[in-house]
């Protein structure tokens, strides 16, 4: 209950004249803007990632998750259907589910033991009819009307999404054909096996994480390791894909031999270091298990999902914003049923690339922190995103481009009405 809406009509929230080639700091730092993002984006016309089916394989299995900042419980019902409910009791608001995951027949709120079915229906109110004819609920108390808040749910290839909007288009439409293709290249029909989770905070605005993965430019410059060992090199085969709306994207590249990089290109790449070698090079091997021209794809699926296919280390990243200046990232690393023990080990070894201790992952987390630091301490400036003027916004086949970031803000401004 801040006075956001009114505040946002203030001229201070006018977008820079230059248009999409500039992004003002208040987009990343303002509390009222953040509040509107929760309402219009995470609680709006979007499909939010909440879990993998493999995490709740059997009826009664549940896991805590979030839609935007809002805590929800994702549970597989008796009839195998998956339900997503808010983690707030209908009686006195208690956050009733405290464990990260588990298996249950029903949800019982600890405070007064109101009891809910797995689909969120109110099943029992203790002493509803009082004791010895005294007390209890009104005679006309309607159990039906008093369940937990339920969200709409859809799944695709074992990935579970939820939405507050009742009129959402199907996920496949929401993604659009190109993003869907990449999504299905990773989720290729094999059953998933969960290898574990990473969780970390990141002291930056949640959108900076999307931008980081819509910014192929940084990849060729920040990540010495990536560049030196040929995972992504300016000039080699790559694509920065955006969907028609600009909200989703896929950064894709094919591994190549860095030593073959043209000298002129290499010259611009401070990150590139000659003659580095690994004591255990096989951990960088790419086992080509996918029907895709790309060895690496990073899909940014609006608003809270990243699908990582970094060669053979595969993972989901779920964004849980906690305010304009910070978000929590929950990673779910997975493999496939039928992976040999050696293949599983290979995925685990390659996991050293990503995550909050990953050779690449820690660099991105640090860089995003630096950006938020810069805005908080030297406020009221703007960002310059004008690389690749040939492409106004959206898909671009050069790494030296910020067109996908411009595309994302074109969509954001429309939804946010800013």
């Amino acid at each position, binding site marked *: 209950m801040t006075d956001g809406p009114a505040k946002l009509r203030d001229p201070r929230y006018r977008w820079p004249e230059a248009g999409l080639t500039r992004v003002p700091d208040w987009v990343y730092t303002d509390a009222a803007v953040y509040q509107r993002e929760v309402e219009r984006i995470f609680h709006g016309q979007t499909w939010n990632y909440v879990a993998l089916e493999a995490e709740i394989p059997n009826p009664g299995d549940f896991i805590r998750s979030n839609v935007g900042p809002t805590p929800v419980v994702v549970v597989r019902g008796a009839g195998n259907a998956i339900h997503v409910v808010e983690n707030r009791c209908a009686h006195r608001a208690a956050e009733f589910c405290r464990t990260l995951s588990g298996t249950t027949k029903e949800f019982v709120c600890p405070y007064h033991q109101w009891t809910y079915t797995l689909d969120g229906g109110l099943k029992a109110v203790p002493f509803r009819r009082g004791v010895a004819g005294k007390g209890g609920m009104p005679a006309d108390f309607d159990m039906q009307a008093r369940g937990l808040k339920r969200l709409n749910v859809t799944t695709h290839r074992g990935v579970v999404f939820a939405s507050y909007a009742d009129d959402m288009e199907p996920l496949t439409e929401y993604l659009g054909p190109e993003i869907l293709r990449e999504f299905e290249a990773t989720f290729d029909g094999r059953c998933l096996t969960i290898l574990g989770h990473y969780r970390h905070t990141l002291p930056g605005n949640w959108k900076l994480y999307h931008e980081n993965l819509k910014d192929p430019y940084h990849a060729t410059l920040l990540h010495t390791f990536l560049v*030196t060992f040929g995972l992504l090199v300016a000039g080699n085969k790559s694509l920065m894909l955006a969907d028609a709306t600009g909200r989703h994207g896929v950064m894709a590249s094919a591994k190549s031999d860095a030593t073959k990089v043209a000298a002129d290109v290499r010259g611009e790449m401070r990150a590139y270091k000659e003659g580095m070698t690994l004591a255990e090079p096989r951990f960088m091997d790419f086992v080509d298990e996918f029907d895709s021209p790309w060895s690496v794809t990073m899909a940014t699926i609006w608003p809270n999902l990243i699908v990582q296919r970094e060669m053979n280390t595969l993972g989901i990243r779920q964004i849980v914003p906690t305010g304009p200046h910070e978000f929590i990232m929950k990673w779910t690393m997975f493999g496939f049923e039928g992976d040999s023990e050696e293949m599983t080990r290979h995925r685990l070894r390659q996991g050293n690339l990503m995550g909050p201790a990953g050779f690449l992952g820690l660099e991105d987390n640090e860089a995003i922190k630096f950006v938020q630091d810069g805005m908080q301490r030297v406020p009221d400036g703007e960002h310059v995103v004008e690389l690749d003027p040939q492409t106004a916004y959206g898909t671009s086949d050069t790494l030296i481009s910020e067109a996908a970031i411009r595309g994302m803000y074109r969509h954001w401004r429309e939804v946010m009405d800013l």
Partner: protein
Amino acid sequence: MLDIPTPLDPRLATLLLHHEIDQFNARYAAALDAQRLGEWTEMFTEDAFYLVTSRENADRNQPVGLIYCDSRAMIRDRAFALEKTAMFAPRYLRHIIGNLMVQPEGEMGDIRATANYVVLQVLFDRPDATLHQIGVYHDIFRHTQDGLKLRERRCIYDNLLVPNALCIPV
């Protein structure tokens, strides 16, 4: 086992082994706090296994690690990558290691031990020292001709969330 001139009261032998591992851990912490990663890599056996993962994953027997090295070669690559390629802000770290428990030397010279650790971190742009990570070392030590080495160290941290990034091993 330690070679001892005169037969030693077994309780004293236990004490000496405990002390030897306690001092190993103190040196291990000092190497990381000074960010001497080369020295750190030398504290493992060639076939060492080094893992940093959450209590959450460990409790569920899920194998993933923030850091996952199944050979000293990978431990060396980790040190190499952090020293030569990785970009992260400068920081001060301080390890406190306590509650050491050592089990008697087992078959093949395996010595199992556990210890609690606290990693404190100071960033240059935040006023406070913070509890960066707390957890337990689950170790297997071996006496080698180069002295005592870690055959296995699994760092199981209690934090649910990693604060931003884990830039230096635990």
